[in-house]
């Protein structure tokens, strides 16, 4: 039976990489029926599949449509498995507040980062798009977040990121949060200039950087 368990979990990972939503649901159901640990299937199946998809994305084998389809398969499998999770696996999760800066309604990149962070075990509070700088700070304080993640795709709204950091400084809570930024026009130089803790060039990298910022292994 062990062979079968490993095989099913491997196939679940493959279904995510292959963007096969129906297959992911079917396999997740089989996993539940056979009494296989749901946490194991999420971690080594769904999450592993998303991490492989992220790898393909970084290697420019997959692009955004493919990564979005993979995440659909991942979430479909998760829907089936989540009710069967044993409570102790939930634990304390690190919290990320994420959103797109005010003036910008492009949220594809932000959504990808959210997916990849969630898949990697973070609790992600998604404020959505077109969010005033003050709101990021307020929610981060209320929720005791660890990371504030800011995205913009427009050069015209980049200063909103600097404004978030100015507010954090003004309210003397800058050291309570790590700030990571990303999006089309953003660069490491810009992150340095405004005093952000990190810049992530894509969604897969965002996960590694989040881990690094919070002191884990990259």
């Amino acid at each position: 039976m062990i062979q079968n368990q490993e095989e099913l979990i491997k196939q679940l990972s493959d279904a995510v990489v292959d963007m096969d939503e129906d297959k992911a649901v079917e396999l997740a159901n089989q996993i539940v029926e056979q009494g296989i640990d749901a946490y194991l299937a999420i971690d080594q199946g769904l999450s592993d599949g998303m991490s492989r998809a992220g790898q393909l994305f970084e290697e420019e084998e997959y692009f955004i449509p493919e990564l979005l389809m993979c995440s659909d398969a991942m979430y479909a499998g998760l829907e089936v498995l989540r009710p069967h999770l044993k409570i102790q696996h939930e634990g304390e999760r690190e919290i990320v507040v994420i959103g797109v800066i005010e003036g910008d309604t492009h949220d594809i990149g932000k959504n990808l980062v959210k997916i990849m962070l969630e898949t990697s075990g973070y609790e992600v509070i998604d404020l959505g798009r077109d969010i005033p700088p003050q709101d990021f700070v307020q929610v981060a304080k209320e929720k005791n977040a660890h990371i504030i993640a800011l995205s913009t795709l427009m050069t015209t709204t980049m200063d909103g990121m600097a404004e978030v950091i100015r507010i954090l400084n003004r309210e003397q809570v800058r050291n309570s949060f790590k700030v990571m930024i990303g999006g089309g026009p953003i660069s490491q130089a810009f992150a340095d200039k405004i005093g952000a803790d990190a810049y992530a060039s894509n969604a897969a990298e965002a996960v590694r950087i989040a881990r690094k910022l919070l002191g884990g292994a990259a």
Partner: protein
Amino acid sequence: MSALSQEERLTRVLDKKNIDRPPVICTGGMMNAAIVDVMKATGHTLPEAHTDANLMAELALDVSRHTGFENLGIPFCMTVEAEVLGSEVTYGTLACEPKIVREIYQSVNDVTLNNIPAMLQSGRMDTVIQATYLLSRKEPDIPVIGNLTGPISTAASLVDPVLFLKELRKSREGAHRVLDYVSDLLIGFAKELVDNGATAISIGDPTATGEILGPKMFNEYAVRYLNKIIDAIHAQGAPVIVHICGNMSSVRQSIPDIRANAISTDAIVDLRRLKQDFTSLTTMGNLSTYLLEYGPTEKVAERARLLVRDGVDIISPACGLSTSTRLAHIQAMTAAVREG
């Protein structure tokens, strides 16, 4: 050749004819140059100028006079098409650009095809067409550039972009149906602009990048529908500029397949190399908008002169300008090119 007008210089370079020096332009649309400094000086302001043809024309004239850009560019946003197609738009403020509040559809398969001639006479499409007419009559020696939001970006403003991108794979037939429809609207819009005196049409399609679509879908969707629109505009006798966002690395080989008269790129692209790789290309760009916003002035001028030395055919900002960009920085850029 010292007597070339701004109109002649741009038209000639887009026609691959020799010129005295590259033109320095900012197309409008995605590359809107209506910065706060200019609007405060003249009192012709946004968001009012988004919806009033006279004010739109006045503001375009202000931008050209104050910045030194050698063109008149309208509109000042990328939401004209999405709005007439039914999506909810806000016009923003003096300093904040209009944006889509909500895309009207959740799937390409839900899109109802409306009557295109009726749409061309409605909303702000008509405003932009009227402003084009006013500008071309008033300043015949300055090129008027009419701006289109590209087909992929327009479709992704009509259908929720995340769902739309997935449907490029999942529902190809439906995606092509919507892109065909959107392209027909853009062609109709461009024809009206050309009929009313636009010298050239510029297409910005920020959703159609290599980073987002990858090479296969870039070819299947972006190149195909851009070319459909370009061919139709060429049939009207007007040249077309296409701006490609991002680093282009995954779609570099497809760039010469786009039948535009000039290709404009982001700051990250090395235009000198692009010209070496594809000698037939007329290039445009690509002064960093980050540099334009933060300066210093001398560095802006130096960078502009370098672009000229590198043989870039048309000098332009690399991306959309921040509305808080300082006028002095833009003037340093245009002066550096104009003084040679």
